[in-house]
């Protein structure tokens, strides 16, 4: 309903006089630039600041680190005065600021001063920022904001002229190399700040209001991957009650002609990007001022000027013309579309202001009083000239919707409401499992089945930078069980790119704070955790509790609450300030996350086979001596630990390593392994040793390496009591070269008392055994004393008899007897055993590159040798022996033709020489042949000695690299995870306002659902002011100043409008308290209890927004996210309203369009009007242009009013063309509404509507219900005609006086026409309406 002057229609029935007039305005801002004479030769516009001063502008600049001023008394003059040196040295690259003739600057030593131009004295404000290069942006003479980079990130501080400092809690993160793209203005008590997080990219804004800093938001909210536009801010100023941001818009183009120009945009909160935008194609980087009738866009050495128009609130007489004589005009108005205007004027009225895009204000006069009928924008101006007449024909549309119709989005603008997710962590559709094996619980607590594995889940809610993440945990009591668990934000993980865990992580553990219990706050970068800070916190076992982390613009806070209590404990509060590290891996892809690590003693294993009974582990230090461990899902018990330190580092297999026969060896510790040189079956025979000169040369053997013979055994018996018998270990040369004795290497002896009279193996223990070279040796039995050379005489009764083998002549050993000379007795062999040690290790030999450190050969026995790379990777061998330096290597000096090979000649003179080995050998139990090869890399690991595999019915399998954990049947439990981003919930009003503003609309009229002040008295809850139909809602009000015990807030989910809240039997209350806390109450069967209380950490002032959506109840204060409560008890109850406790009063401005809009993208190429229509869809939201050109949007029709006795005709039209009796709304939720009366009366008329925008099933149901009601009302239509009632607008409910009685109808469209001729004078309306009954 149009607003008309009081009494305007008081005397119009039956007769009246009429006329009309049109006022045309050309509101365009057409700038022309001119270059200024620049006495300093300045180039960078971001080094200066400017502000209105008297009748002109005062400018300041940092030129060569000195302050210069320019006092422009007449900005329109051709010549600006020269810059004047203020004789003040400035900090390098600092930028001074000016406001109200007060100049703020950072001097050369970094102190910040102000100086009242021109005659004041510098006053020191602060010395706190000497370490930084500061950009100053004063908003008044008493407040100045400073912006500077610290650790690469932007900080912002509010300074007062008295030196008080208040720092913004956050940081500007991004690709910022200068702080100079920064400015601030004050408007209506709020200070608006602008800073860039990309130098040529995006502009962030935040505000400060009565002690509260808001969160940041983007001036131009681009799609996350959009690179179409870049906007580099120049400056901000305030003109006509609006913030004017200037800067340079650059557009991405692949053609070699850049698209870039300077623009202005009006704000704050929503910023225009419509038809009125352009300043100059030159890169001026100016600041906008309105001085008298001119706009000045002042750059560093260029100024652009434009006549001011009504666009900036100035009614410029040169841009306006009034036409009083109209032949006729018509105005058609229908719901949710632009009004259509046409008019006819005399050609004589032609004027430059009457042009396309001119604004035309249509006013009507009835009985001498004027009223505004419409504000339109001309589409066409047609000058007709025909034989009958000369006329000026105009057509146009109501101006706001025309802007929407003509505006086409030039990029993808992306808008999001708060992401909300509360879920059981086992819900796979809501909580994504990244790592760890989790149980399948979807009702009881979820547990991580793994031990010592990082179990990570993340929330599937929309990604965001920061937010609130919390989870409910319980940890069990168990020995050797020390869990870690917590919550994460900005979490990012990309398996395809092999990027590990990233984000911010708050972990509780019993060692997280200086070794004690507490919270550790980590920065997680590609899987590497870096501790940022920690705090002490003890949490009882077996008790449900919450951990919560928030991240807002760099401020990280961690909280803790027992589930049984209502209040949170703040544990950590810090600002993320890591140099060179952003607080997110991908700023647009951060998620809320949950972390659990069921920690028991553990170590990594490289893997082992399914039958291995040693279990290689990286370290055994934390393992008990015997325990059950779990590897993957297999339980294994062990009963021994191989402690010690393995060989560190990689061990490289050397395929050329070879132990040649007779190789020498330098490793004195490697004294060989026991060998048996001779053994086996034989055919017994006897040979007596009874002569003093008798020698029995026993077997010979050829050693394969250095050998230390320690024992030699023969089958002997004594006869009588012979003298001792000696066994010489004799070199092969003994029988060939003199003196013979030099070839006796060592010997052993036995006496008759130790030998029986029948054959038995008799051991000669070699005295002083020595290493013997790999050549031929003999064991010689004799009774000659090796020390003295004496020997007994012949004794036929007392002698020794040796068992000989008379049946194996082919054995390599020969018997030689000495009897006045050497001779050989062929065909006789002696069974014997030579025991000793040689340089061959125990097990299978593996050569390794490089010598090791000297150590005992059993040092690493039973350690695990693990192939970590190359052939055989994953194989594990058990170490049985170790030779830290391999035998010397034979270096042949010639080549051999096959089948000969150099190994056949190793050690032989003339074939080469020995070289000291640079290898080591390791011996293993398992045969590595065919497994390892060139390129094999080993690591040596200690081991657990397994006693049983596959314990408790688990499957014994091979394992790859994984953890070996001491098994405990224990896990941290979690049964609820919640994530909320910080973006304020957008209601329909917000997004329509944003869309309209983008299109250039600056005036809006949104109906308020609740505006009446609500109050109470001391000590009581007042009667709520209820609104129906608001199970979900977004309430809005200004925070009042509260005193002791007072609270204000929202009551919701009530099923009735009970004045006394105690009479309700269900509901919630979300309140702000006098202590700057938020409270969440629940009513259960009439009893109210407080569920939760949270202190956001800042005072309450400014606009409060409380959003209740299903089970989430979020609060924002002055643009800053405060908190989200959660409860799912009451899912219905459609009454919500304001509530007050105590003698306080709150005045709401609760929008009638408070339905939440989850996400909306202004797709590039989409027209604004189409976007608006798509957004509204079939919802009962109505809009049209108001008479003053504002976009008027409402959901509730104004109260019905009577149209007087002005109708001269009417048609009553019955139709079922649009009828429906059943409506089904389908979107994410499906709901169907049936009107059974209509079903009976009209039959089955089904209608399907799209409810993709509905937030839940209830909203879908409401959509269906309203659409059906709307359809039902269209069965009975009216088309009255009569004298115009200019109040009537589409969707008004009016009462028609018809011959059959009064009828209440809803106006769908109305056509006004005024025709003034000598023989005809009319101001009529034709209405298209429908029965209001039931709608």
């Amino acid at each position, binding site marked *: 309903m149009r607003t008309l002057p009081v009494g305007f229609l008081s005397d119009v029935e039956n007769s009246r*006089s*009429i006329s009309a007039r049109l006022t045309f305005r050309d509101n365009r801002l057409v700038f022309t630039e001119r270059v200024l004479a620049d006495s300093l030769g300045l180039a960078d516009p971001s080094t200066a600041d400017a502000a209105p001063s008297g009748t002109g502008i005062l400018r300041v600049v940092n030129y060569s680190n000195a302050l210069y001023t320019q006092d422009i008394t007449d900005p329109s003059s051709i010549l600006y005065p020269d810059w004047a040196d203020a004789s003040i040295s400035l900090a390098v690259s600092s930028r001074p600021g000016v406001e109200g003739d007060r100049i703020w600057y950072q001097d050369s030593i970094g102190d910040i001063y102000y100086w009242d131009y021109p005659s004041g004295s510098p006053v020191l404000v602060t010395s706190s920022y000497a370490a930084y290069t500061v950009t100053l942006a004063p908003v008044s003479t008493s407040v100045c904001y400073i912006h500077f980079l610290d650790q690469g990130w932007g900080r912002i501080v509010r300074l007062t002229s008295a030196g008080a400092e208040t720092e913004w809690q956050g940081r500007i993160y991004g690709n910022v190399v200068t702080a100079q793209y920064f400015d601030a203005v004050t408007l209506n008590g709020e200070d608006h700040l602008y800073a860039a997080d990309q130098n040529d990219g995006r502009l962030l804004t935040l505000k400060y209001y009565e002690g509260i800093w808001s969160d940041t938001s983007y001036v131009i909210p681009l799609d996350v991957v959009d690179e179409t536009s870049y906007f580099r801010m120049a400056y901000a100023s305030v003109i006509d009650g609006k913030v004017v941001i200037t800067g340079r818009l650059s557009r991405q183009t692949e053609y070699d002609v850049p698209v870039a120009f300077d623009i202005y945009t009006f704000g704050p909160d929503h910023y225009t990007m419509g038809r009125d935008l352009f300043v100059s194609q030159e890169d001026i980087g100016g600041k906008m001022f309105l001085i008298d009738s001119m706009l000045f866009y002042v750059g560093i050495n260029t100024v652009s000027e434009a006549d001011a128009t009504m666009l900036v609130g100035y009614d410029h007489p040169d841009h306006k013309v009034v036409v009083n004589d109209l032949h006729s005009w018509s105005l058609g108005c229908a719901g949710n579309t632009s009004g259509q205007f046409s008019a006819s004027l005399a050609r004589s009225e032609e004027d430059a202001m009457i042009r396309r895009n001119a604004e035309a204000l249509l006013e009507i006069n009835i009985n001498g009083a004027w009223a505004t009928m419409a504000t339109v924008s001309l589409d066409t101006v047609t000058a007709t000239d025909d034989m009958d007449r000369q006329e000026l024909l105009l057509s146009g549309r109501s101006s706001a919707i025309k802007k929407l119709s003509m505006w086409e989005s030039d990029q993808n603008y992306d808008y999001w409401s708060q992401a909300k997710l509360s879920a059981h962590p086992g819900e796979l559709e809501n909580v994504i499992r990244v790592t760890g094996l989790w149980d399948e619980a979807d009702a009881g607590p979820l547990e991580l089945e793994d031990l010592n594995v990082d179990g990570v889940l993340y929330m599937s809610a929309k990604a965001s930078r920061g937010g609130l993440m919390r989870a409910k945990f319980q940890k069990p009591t168990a020995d050797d069980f020390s869990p870690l668990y917590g919550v994460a934000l900005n979490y990012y993980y990309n398996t395809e790119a092999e990027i590990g865990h990233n984000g911010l992580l708050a972990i509780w553990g019993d060692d997280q704070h200086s070794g004690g219990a507490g919270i550790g706050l980590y920065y997680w970068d590609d899987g590497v955790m870096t501790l940022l800070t920690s705090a002490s916190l003890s949490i009882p076992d077996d008790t449900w509790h919450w951990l919560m982390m928030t991240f807002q613009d760099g401020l990280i806070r961690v909280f803790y609450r027992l589930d049984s209590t209502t209040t949170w404990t703040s544990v950590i509060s810090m600002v993320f300030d890591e140099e060179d590290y952003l607080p997110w891996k991908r700023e647009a892809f951060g998620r809320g996350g949950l972390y659990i690590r069921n920690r028991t003693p553990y170590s990594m294993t490289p893997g082992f086979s399914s039958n291995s009974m040693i279990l290689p582990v990286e370290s055994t230090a934390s393992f008990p001596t015997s325990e059950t461990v779990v590897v993957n899902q297999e339980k294994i018990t062990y009963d021994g630990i191989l402690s010690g330190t393995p060989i560190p580092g990689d061990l490289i297999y050397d395929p050329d390593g070879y132990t040649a026969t007779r190789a020498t060896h330098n490793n004195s510790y490697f004294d060989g392994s026991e060998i048996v040189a001779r053994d086996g079956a034989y055919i017994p025979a006897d040979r007596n040793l009874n002569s003093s000169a008798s020698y029995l040369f026993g077997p010979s053997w050829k050693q394969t390496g250095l050998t230390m013979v320690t024992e030699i055994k023969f089958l002997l018996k004594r006869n009588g009591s012979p003298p001792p018998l000696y066994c010489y270990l004799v070199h092969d040369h003994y029988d060939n070269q003199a003196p013979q004795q030099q070839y006796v290497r060592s010997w052993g002896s036995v006496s008759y008392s130790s030998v029986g009279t029948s054959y038995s193996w008799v051991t000669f223990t070699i005295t002083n055994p020595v290493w013997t070279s790999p050549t031929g040796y003999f064991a010689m039995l004799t009774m000659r004393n090796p020390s003295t050379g004496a020997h007994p005489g012949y004794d036929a009764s007392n002698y020794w008899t040796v068992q000989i083998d008379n049946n194996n002549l082919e054995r390599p050993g020969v018997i030689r007897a000495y009897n006045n000379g050497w001779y050989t007795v062929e065909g006789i062999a002696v069974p014997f055993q030579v025991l000793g040690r040689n340089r061959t290790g125990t097990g299978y030999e593996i050569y390794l590159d490089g010598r090791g450190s000297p150590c005992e050969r059993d040092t690493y026995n039973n350690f695990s040798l693990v192939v970590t790379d190359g052939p055989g990777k994953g194989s594990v061998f058990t170490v049985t022996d170790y030779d830290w330096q391999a035998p010397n290597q034979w270096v042949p000096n010639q080549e051999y033709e096959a089948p000969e090979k150099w190994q056949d000649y190793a050690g032989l003179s003339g074939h080469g020489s020995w070289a000291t080995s640079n290898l080591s050998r390791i011996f293993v139990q398992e045969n590595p042949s065919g497994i390892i090869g060139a390129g094999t890399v080993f690591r040596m690991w200690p081991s657990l000695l397994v006693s049983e595999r596959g314990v408790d019915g688990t499957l014994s399998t091979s394992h790859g690299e994984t953890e070996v954990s001491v098994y405990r049947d224990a896990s941290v439990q979690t049964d609820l995870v919640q994530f909320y981003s910080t973006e304020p919930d957008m209601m329909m009003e917000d997004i329509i306002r944003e869309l309209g503003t983008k299109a250039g609309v600056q005036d809006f009229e949104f109906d308020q659902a609740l505006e009446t002040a609500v109050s109470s008295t001391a000590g009581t809850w007042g009667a709520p002011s209820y609104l129906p139909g608001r199970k979900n809602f977004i309430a809005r009000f200004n925070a009042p100043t509260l005193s002791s015990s007072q609270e204000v807030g929202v009551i919701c989910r009530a099923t009735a409008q009970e004045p006394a809240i105690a009479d309700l039997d269900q509901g919630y209350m979300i309140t702000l308290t006098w202590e700057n806390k938020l409270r969440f109450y629940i009513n259960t069967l009439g009893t109210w209890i407080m569920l939760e209380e949270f202190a956001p950490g800042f005072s309450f002032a400014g606009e409060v927004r409380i959003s209740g959506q299903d089970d989430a109840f979020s609060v924002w204060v002055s643009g800053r996210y405060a908190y989200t409560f959660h409860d799912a008890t009451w899912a219905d109850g459609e009454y919500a309203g304001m509530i007050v406790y105590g003698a306080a009063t709150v005045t709401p401005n609760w929008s009638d369009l408070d339905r939440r809009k989850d996400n909306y993208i202004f797709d590039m190429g989409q027209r604004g009007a189409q976007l608006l229509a798509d957004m509204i869809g079939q919802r009962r939201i109505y809009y049209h242009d108001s008479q003053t050109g504002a976009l008027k949007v409402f959901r509730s029709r104004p109260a019905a009013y009577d149209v007087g006795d002005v109708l*001269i005709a009417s048609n009553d039209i019955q139709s079922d063309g649009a009828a429906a009796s059943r409506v089904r709304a389908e979107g994410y939720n499906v709901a169907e509404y049936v009107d059974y009366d209509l079903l009976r009366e009209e039959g089955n008329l089904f209608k399907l509507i799209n409810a993709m925008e509905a937030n839940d099933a209830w909203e879908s149901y409401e959509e269906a219900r309203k659409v059906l009601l709307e359809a039902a009302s269209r069965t009975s239509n009216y088309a009255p005609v009569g004298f115009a009632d200019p109040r009537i607008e589409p969707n008004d409910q009016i009462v028609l006086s018809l*011959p059959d009685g009064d009828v209440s109808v809803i106006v769908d469209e109305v056509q006004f026409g005024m025709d003034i001729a000598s023989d005809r*004078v009319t*101001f009529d309306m034709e209405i298209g309406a429908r029965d209001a009954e039931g709608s």
Partner: protein
Amino acid sequence: MNNYITLDSKKYMTSSKDWAPVWLKPATDRITLSGEMDVTYGPGLIVGYTGSIIAPVTSPGTGWGTVSDLKTTLAKRTAVTFTAHDSSTAVNVHVLGPFNPASMSPMWDASSNEWHVPVRVLEA
């Protein structure tokens, strides 16, 4: 009181049979659905004359218009000056048709012939 009018600076005689003043009050009257009279008035009162201007083929003297002069005046799409019989003050008027000139003689171009041209003269 003159025996002529002055139109567009030319004098013409008018026909006594039909020349008369006109006062026009722009308005529309109708009956509403309730049977009441409904009148909408336009602004102002339109004053003028209606009747026939007598235009001779040949000018009777200096200052007097001919049929040719009258035709030129009537073709103009702007207001022209007009002085009534009873006035000495010229006002701007719109001269409106339809013009249905009638010749007094079958010899249209006879020098003695006169044309009678009905007009509506309304003050601008």
